[in-house]
């Protein structure tokens, strides 16, 4: 899809070059997303314990793992690359994030509440109740950062790269926003790991 992509962002006065368009939403991934949506819906509708647990653990594990890896490994590497290299990497990487992250977040959040109710963790007398409230707060902060800052920057970068003459300075600015917010959500996922392992062992 993005083979032979030349996304070197020129200054905005440079002559345009022939480049394939970046597919902002990779259409090939949509059947997988549809499958995940149907699986979660069936699990919720049938109160299917294994399905709910599978969706929550797989979604949550991927969400935490990807956030940690992107925030603490990919992000700092990206920050040290030249802007053209950053842009080229992002052209291949970001469309995949556009489709993966909302899917794993939906899987985790839609099933998590039901799993907690089934296990009795929502009961105020449960030793896990306070940990669950803490996890709601951590997820809330991560959601606000990811949905309000990170994802808009991600999509804006892809649109900028699709312009006949991308503005390198603007791409760099938006990428910086992406790198910092990915780092913050990555660090917050450490709190999620602590909370979820406490919940599982109390």
């Amino acid at each position, binding site marked *: 899809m993005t083979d032979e992509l030349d996304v070197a962002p020129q200054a905005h006065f440079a002559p345009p070059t022939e480049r394939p368009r970046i597919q902002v939403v990779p259409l090939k991934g949509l059947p997988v997303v549809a499958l995940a949506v149907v699986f979660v819906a069936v699990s919720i509708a049938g109160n299917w314990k294994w399905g709910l647990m599978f969706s929550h653990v797989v979604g949550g594990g991927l969400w935490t793992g990807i956030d940690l890896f992107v925030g603490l490994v990919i992000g700092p590497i990206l920050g040290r690359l030249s802007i053209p290299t950053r842009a080229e990497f992002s052209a291949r990487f970001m469309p995949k994030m556009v489709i993966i992250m*909302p899917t794993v977040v939906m899987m985790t959040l839609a*099933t998590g509440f039901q799993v907690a109710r089934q296990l009795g963790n929502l009961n105020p007398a449960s030793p896990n109740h306070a940990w669950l409230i803490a996890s709601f707060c951590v997820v809330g902060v991560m959601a606000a950062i990811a949905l*309000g800052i990170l994802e808009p920057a991600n999509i804006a970068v892809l649109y900028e790269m699709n312009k006949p003459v991308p503005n390198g300075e603007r791409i760099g600015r938006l990428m910086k926003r992406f790198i910092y917010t990915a780092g913050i959500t990555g660090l917050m996922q450490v709190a999620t790991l602590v909370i979820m392992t406490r919940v599982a062992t109390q």
Partner: protein
Amino acid sequence: MSGPHDAAALDADRPMPPVGWLSTGALCLVIVGGILLASYAPRVAPLGVPVALLCAGVVLLAVAGTLLTRIEGFAWTTFATVFKWALLAYAITAGMIEFAFVRDHTRGSALVVVTMMLVVFALSVPSTIAFTVARFAQSD
């Protein structure tokens, strides 16, 4: 070096009203309200603070919408394209969360508040994404 491209770039980088921050503010308010409601489950939560947060969120979103309509030379075509696809994605997510609440026997005024909060969520995220993209796009 000046030319039509420079003019377009300058145009795209001109100061804009804080539409993105306002819609993100609305998102933050409904997230806090949602956490308050969820922290009382399975008991019935007092609705005073969540309703106040919801109303504040609706006001922020309305102000963002009003400011948006007043921007001259805005890239409305780009905004509409991004908004409609993002709305589809976040409506599915919100619908799934609503479905989980209904299955968990959330009923009455608590369900109405949750539904309204999910509507604000499903509108605020696409607004922020579409505005962030369209502000740098060539105006219509």
